[in-house]
């Protein structure tokens, strides 16, 4: 075991780098986005207000997209109940209507089966384990477990920020890691968010691919991992290789009675249990609110990822 003696020096260095990166992130002279991505992304980089307006305008447009339906109904001569407003049918709107909530699902029979498998896994495996786990650990502890695991995964998010040309996001992720690892005691506490309002930048390889125009491909449900798409599966593999724990040589230290525990596997299991314990009841509620839970989840996954990529 090698031990770092000048700990204080390390902390000061970290603080210095943190201050530098914060000022870089918020300074007026931030470098222009190096992204060669689409125009909306460049617009989004202008600033928080610009981004908001841009997205808000988009949602209004989306809302209007649905008006096509109304228009259609009027064309067919059916009495429309509120009838008053007549909006022009844009071809753009029509396009939007075509693209909304459609996702290729050629593996539907398999997916439906896997949905049932994961459903049973939740009720008969994950939920009972999470309930025991919840009984042992109080909520603040479980939130800290979440924070630590998320802090370790910083390189994945940082790398994907850089790959998408989101340098401000990368600076935030870097600062968060520095602050939370030191002042936040190895990531136990998210002090960066609490005191400096530095939000976690939830970026992954699937989003990076989407950012550069890679479409979803098709819908696929994996056992344990749940809903995904062809693109996000490729992204998942990318994230897997970017996971720093994969390269940590802890296996030797963790071997118990000759069994080598895989550290990334153990953290993945811990993470799954921890997350389940923090969100118990959500899945049950979701199922109760839906008419066809499989379709509802497919649409929700699709829209959720689309929204994340837009950000």
């Amino acid at each position: 075991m090698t031990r770092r003696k000048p700990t204080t020096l390390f902390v000061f260095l970290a603080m210095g780098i943190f201050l530098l990166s914060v000022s870089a992130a918020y300074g007026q002279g931030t470098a222009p986005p190096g992204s060669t991505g689409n125009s909306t992304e460049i617009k989004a980089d202008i600033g928080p207000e610009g981004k908001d307006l841009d997205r808000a305008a988009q949602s209004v447009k989306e809302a209007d997209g649905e008006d096509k339906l109304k228009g259609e109904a009027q064309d067919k001569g059916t009495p429309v109940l509120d009838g008053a407003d007549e909006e022009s049918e844009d071809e753009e709107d029509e396009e939007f209507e075509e693209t909304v909530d459609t996702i290729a699902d050629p593996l539907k029979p398999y997916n439906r089966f896997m949905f049932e498998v994961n459903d049973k896994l939740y009720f008969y495996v994950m939920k009972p384990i999470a309930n025991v786990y919840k009984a042992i650990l109080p909520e603040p502890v479980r939130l800290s477990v979440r924070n630590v695991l998320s802090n370790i995964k910083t390189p994945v998010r940082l790398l994907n920020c850089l790959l998408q040309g989101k340098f401000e996001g990368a600076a935030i992720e870097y600062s968060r890691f520095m602050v939370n690892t030191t002042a936040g005691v190895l990531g136990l506490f998210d002090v960066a968010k609490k005191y400096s309002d530095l939000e976690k930048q939830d970026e992954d390889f699937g989003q990076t691919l989407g950012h550069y125009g890679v479409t979803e491909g098709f819908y696929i449900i994996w056992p344990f991992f749940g809903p995904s798409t062809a693109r996000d599966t490729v992204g998942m593999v990318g994230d897997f290789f970017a996971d720093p724990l994969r390269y940590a040589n802890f296996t030797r230290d963790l071997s118990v009675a000759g069994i080598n525990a895989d550290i990334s596997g153990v953290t993945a299991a811990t993470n799954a249990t921890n997350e389940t314990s923090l969100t118990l009841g959500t899945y049950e509620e979701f199922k109760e609110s839906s008419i066809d839970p499989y379709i509802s989840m497919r649409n929700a996954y699709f829209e959720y990822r689309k929204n994340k990529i837009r950000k």
Partner: protein
Amino acid sequence: MKQTKLLIACIMCLFAAFFWVFPAVAAEPPMAQVREKADKVMKILNDPALKGNKEKRRQMVTNIVEDMIDWQEVGRRALAQHWRKRSPREKEEFLNLFRDLLKRTYSEKLDIYAGEQIIYVSEVVDGNKAVVKTKVINKKKEQEYSVDYRLIKKGEKWLGYDVIIEGISAVNNYRVQFNEVITGSSYESLVKRMKTREFKVKESAKTSREEKR
């Protein structure tokens, strides 16, 4: 003399108040309307006296929220292309079933309220449509998610017709589900499913309540 002066002053004040108040009422922005109702709901949810009586709390909140929603618009958008094929009676039946489904699922969510706060981000008005963007923050669970309301202007009132949580539109989500059931089997089977669902949920709610006793 003094009295007439006072009277004139009073009338002036009245006029001033009228001109000042009236346009404000006429053009109340959507965000203010959402905020006003949401504040009322939050007050009920944060009322310690109502915490024990979840049934009453649900009812009070539902009464407030119900008037804020254009149910017809919600139902029509959710059925989309299948809406115009339905007879007026079928439409009414569907609207009732769908309204019950939505009310039930959203009022159940009230029971797990844990001190969440609402932050109003922005509002965009475009003709008779508006989007009010908010954020819901759960400090204890260190969670935050975006909730956007889509509103349509009916008279002087803005009525909600969709809610979008983290990019997922509730109406869109139901639309795809309804479409799947209708195209997969039939409209009748959708209605049947909605009815049995209602029955099932009522039964399970009854048993879970009995279990708790």
